[in-house]
């Protein structure tokens, strides 16, 4: 009689289900991303059980590439990924080391290799997250030290798959170019995950959560105004999804504070201090003119 194993129970007790649930709850939208993470978690779970039951198993490669427009949550998800992989026993320690080109590439000959290696060593047992990875490769300068960092990365990604997970992130079009010129990277990364843009409803939901975290809230009319804001803002240049929303909310809080100070008799209640009203949102320059507001200090 063959040994049996309750997969679902193992899934529940390992704490993985819990992480996936928080991921679902706390991250709005991103359905394809969550789907992929769920699949990865399932695969790792099955591999683990196969190992326990003495079946042939091979540790899957988990290097990942996150592509998507600005503000679609790539960094946020990478942060969660480290915790998830740790719970799944895929990485031993579960720390996230977040780097950009500056941290990897040196300033003179012979400076790059030790710098890259040091960071790789720090990331061992965890996740190395390389934000805006395409900056590593500068095709217009053939003596650029970025190439050296890439070679070391590739070597470690290949030889020490069990020791760390590398996640590259960046905007889709530039990452595509990056992979074209570095085919080694493309083939060593098994998981290419594309982060879709948020819908208007999702952005509104995100806005409410962001406000809630700062203990503010929309009045019903302000909420409608925010909906209009998102619709208008999307059509304007330099739209960066959730990041634009965060910036908009920062400016809204400025107007909210200013309104409280300038109008009325100066007597405020906690209610007033935490409720964003319609004019706070409506007075944004996004409504009055077509231009970008991102570059101006106060809209």
């Amino acid at each position, binding site marked *: 009689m063959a040994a049996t194993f309750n997969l679902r129970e193992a899934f529940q007790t390992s704490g993985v289900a819990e992480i996936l649930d928080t991921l679902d709850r706390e991250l709005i939208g991103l359905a394809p991303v969550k789907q992929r993470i769920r699949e990865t978690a399932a695969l790792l779970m099955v591999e683990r059980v196969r190992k326990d039951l003495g079946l042939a198993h091979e540790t899957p490669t988990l290097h990942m590439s996150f592509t998507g427009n600005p503000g679609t949550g790539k960094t946020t998800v990478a942060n969660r990924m480290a915790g998830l992989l740790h719970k799944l026993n895929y990485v*031993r320690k579960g720390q996230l080391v977040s780097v950009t080109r500056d941290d990897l590439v040196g300033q003179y000959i012979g400076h790059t290799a*030790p710098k890259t290696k*040091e960071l*790789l*060593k*720090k990331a*061992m*047992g*965890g996740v190395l997250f390389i934000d805006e990875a395409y900056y590593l490769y500068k095709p217009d300068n053939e003596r650029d030290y970025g190439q050296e960092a890439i070679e070391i990365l590739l070597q470690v990604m290949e030889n*020490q798959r069990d020791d760390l997970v590398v996640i590259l992130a960046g905007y889709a079009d530039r990452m595509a170019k990056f992979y074209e010129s570095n085919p080694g990277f493309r083939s060593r990364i098994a998981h290419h995950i594309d982060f879709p843009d948020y819908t208007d409803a999702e952005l509104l939901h995100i806005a409410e959560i962001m406000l809630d975290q700062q203990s503010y809230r929309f009045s019903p009319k302000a909420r409608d105004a925010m909906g209009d804001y998102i619709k208008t803002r999307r059509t304007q240049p330099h739209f960066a999804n959730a990041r634009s929303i965060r910036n908009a909310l920062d400016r809204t809080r400025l107007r909210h504070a200013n309104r409280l100070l300038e109008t009325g008799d100066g007597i405020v209640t906690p209610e007033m201090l935490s409720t964003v009203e319609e004019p706070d949102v409506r007075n944004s320059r996004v409504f009055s003119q077509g231009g970008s507001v991102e570059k101006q200090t106060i809209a």
Partner: protein
Amino acid sequence: MRITQGCFSFLPDLNDEQIAAQIEYCLGKNWAIGVEYTRDPHPRNTYWNMWGNPMFDLKDAAGVMMEIRDCRKANPENYIRINAFDSTRGWETVRMSFIASRPKVEPTIEMTRLETGGRNIQYTHVTRY
């Protein structure tokens, strides 16, 4: 002649798995790990060559093992030792040190006596390869 210095040197040589486990112990105590190598294990040769900088803020032994492997490849037939440095105020010293690699044939250390005035004896130790 088998050189005995540092921890574990009277035990059979540690294998890589055991070395990694010892390093995990050191990292767990927040000690910084340094890799050093030499051809000359003379007891008075305190300062061995450093293989790169000491490694601070590591989380996992895999990084150190990578350096040890590289060091072995570049310096075969050398002694390689691991130093674990404790930076806690009041300690600020190497807390643990052990040999991670030895040459296949170890040199001998020869002692010569020299009688000087007043029947004093001076001792000299020389490493013979």
